[in-house]
């Protein structure tokens, strides 16, 4: 295997250092390392991070290959600086058996742009009625440890309790899409001042918060670990903060779009802003940023949700919910967290790499940038400023809410176990 010398990068935003990759691992980190026999990547002024890990990606394969495939989704991931993604279970067929999770796992391996770790459904067909074969998915080649009915809430309290208990046998975790279904029938956007004016069905904050409150109490009662997907409200932050202070084993994620966008954008009736959970208010956005900074929220997860053009080029009510996010996530985090002084680059490495790998128990990712570690790395030109142009996306879908918006930062290189998947912004 060849050697690569990343020269003069600010490791985790710190002082410039050289990082020498040999084969699949980091051989040395230091100053003035010898470039002999190595390909050199000049990285002066750039920030070097551990390869990003996304705990919440929709790759759409099998079933909706018109919006994304494992190949296009992992290429998008590599473009965005990710070396591992967790693929959500709401495919067609649903990833509720060992067969489906192994298929997705294998496709990720074959394409080689980033590691794909399938998430298994909690219940058969995401129907919330009957537990899927969680143990079989765990024991499969895919080695599933994260289970989620994402897209739907495990709303039955007994099923949720059983799932939380059952996965303890093999150290699994249930990731809950917190949405009380009765309170969100016909919901189209955040319920509040804007929904009242626009006449769109409201998705109240309490529908998320009541489920989170129930689930942290359930987790406490049965001594299990629970993860909260895409937390979106200031009230949810308070509940998770309370639960953590009580010693409950809960982790939580926030999406980049909930760190930046608000329901005011819905006034355009442009379905590119339609997402579930919905965009909330400025107050929520600020609470989420603060919670991510203080660790109440553990990680940033994209909820990358590709949809074909026609599913967004229509009236609001007819449009699909979701946004692509893999290729803009780091830029949004730089904009909302780093440039506001809330988080330094070491913090970004924790929230977007180390902590998600730990929650998902993914070996070899989210490791320190030091000798002997796997060479999963992301190089960021943080000084870059540019408008988001979806035409340049590697994703098969273009449903980004940031089109034409100026965002900072650009991933120039991504290395997956020493092999470049992205070079100077171009996919290898």
């Amino acid at each position, binding site marked *: 295997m060849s050697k690569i010398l990343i020269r003069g990068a600010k490791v985790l935003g710190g002082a410039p250092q050289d990082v020498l990759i040999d084969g699949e691992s980091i051989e040395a980190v230091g100053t003035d390392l010898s470039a002999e026999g190595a390909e050199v990547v000049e990285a002066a002024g750039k920030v070097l991070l551990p390869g990003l890990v996304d705990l919440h990606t929709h790759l759409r394969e099998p079933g909706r290959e018109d919006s994304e495939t494992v190949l296009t989704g992992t290429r998008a991931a590599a473009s965005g600086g990710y070396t591992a993604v967790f693929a959500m279970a709401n495919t067609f067929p649903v990833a509720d058996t060992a067969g489906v999770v192994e298929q997705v796992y294998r496709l990720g391996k074959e394409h080689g742009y980033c590691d794909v770790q399938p998430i298994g459904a909690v219940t058969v067909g995401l129907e919330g009625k009957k537990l899927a074969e969680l143990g079989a998915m765990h024991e499969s080649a895919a080695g599933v440890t994260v289970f989620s009915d994402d897209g739907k809430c495990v709303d039955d309290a007994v099923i949720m309790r059983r799932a939380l208990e059952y996965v303890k046998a093999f150290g699994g975790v249930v990731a809950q899409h917190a949405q009380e279904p009765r309170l969100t029938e016909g919901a*189209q956007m955040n*319920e*509040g*001042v*804007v*929904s*009242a*004016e*626009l*006449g*769109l069905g*409201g998705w*109240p904050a309490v529908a998320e918060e009541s489920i989170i409150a129930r689930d942290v109490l359930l987790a406490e009662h049965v001594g299990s670990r629970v993860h909260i997907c895409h937390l979106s409200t200031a009230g949810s932050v308070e509940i998770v903060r309370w639960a953590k202070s009580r010693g409950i084993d809960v982790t939580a994620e926030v999406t980049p779009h909930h760190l930046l966008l608000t329901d005011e954008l819905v006034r*355009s*009736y*442009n379905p590119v802003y339609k997402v579930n959970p919905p965009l909330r208010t400025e107050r929520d956005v600020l609470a989420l940023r603060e919670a991510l900074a203080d660790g109440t929220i553990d990680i940033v997860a994209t909820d990358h949700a590709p949809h074909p053009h*026609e599913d967004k*080029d*229509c*009236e*609001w*009510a*007819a449009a699909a919910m979701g946004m692509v996010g893999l290729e803009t996530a780091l830029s949004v985090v730089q904009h909302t967290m780093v440039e506001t002084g809330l988080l330094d680059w070491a913090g970004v490495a924790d929230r977007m790499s180390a902590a998600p790998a730990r929650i998902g128990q993914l070996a070899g990712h989210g490791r320190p940038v030091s000798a002997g570690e796997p060479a999963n790395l992301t190089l960021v030109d943080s000084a870059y400023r540019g408008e988001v142009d979806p035409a340049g996306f590697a994703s098969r879908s273009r449903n980004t809410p940031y089109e034409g918006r100026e965002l900072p930062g650009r991933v120039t290189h991504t290395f997956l176990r020493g092999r470049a998947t992205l070079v100077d912004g171009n996919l290898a």
Partner: protein
Amino acid sequence: MKRHLISAADLTRDDAVLILDTAEEMARVADRPIKKLPALRGRTVCNLFFEDSTRTRISFEAAEKRLSADVINFAAKGSSVSKGESLKDTAQTLEAMGVDAVVIRHGASGAPYRLATSGWIDAPVINAGDGTHQHPTQALLDAFTMRRRLVGPDAGLGRDLDGKRITLVGDVLHSRVARSNVDLLHTLGAEVTLVAPPTLVPVGVETWPCEVSYDLDSVLPKSDAVMMLRVQRERMNAAFFPTEREYSRRYGLDADRMSRMPGHAIVMHPGPMVRGMEITAEVADSDRCTAVEQVANGVSVRMAVLYLLLGGNEPAVTHPRTEEK
């Protein structure tokens, strides 16, 4: 005035007064033996109705025909929409056929806004009611009716509804009529009060330019006009209120309640009325109820809107009084 009419909130006070004044002129056409003006001769207007609505469609059609426009009616039922054709494709198909304006009724809030602002078509768009969002021509015809009754057809010209106390009663949550009226009446200087059970008032109403009350009886004596909104019986199945009887008892308008209104005050209803629910037959059929008048005024107001959006700025009717102003 903007190119499209999507929301009552898009209208300035002067826009709205101009429409109402123009509607007065149009109303005079209805009194002629030949109820027709040549203003839109050679122009084609399409009524694009994705939601059932006999009353509003007929009203627009009558307005278009009185202005000599060519009219195309497109109803979603039995059309290509039921085969899965999108709003965008339907609109582009119609525009390709040379439509000069689109009047759209749609079940999805914001559909007319999307149609007007997404670059799908160039023609002016008039919102004939979208979901639970807006129904601006209804608000205009309501304001027109109020001005005629409370100020006077001639005395009202050039004037707004300054200081008039208007009460809207009923299912505000699901009502595009309520939203449009709150916006327009506020623009015209009226003081608006919404009365409804708390379940039928939207969360977020606190930013609306109006008062909210749960007590109809306390508001009636302070009202110059009381507009009853239709309440669908199905709402009680979703626990918005317990029974039809209880709703009527607390929020329905009967003769006894009507007698507590000031002598000059009028009762309005956008139709269709659910008699026995929000309004008793006695009230609906009384002289104080303007429901039928509102229908007639709807044609005049829609003529005015079409004329002003499509016909340019010359006076619609040469009338000595308008020249004096």
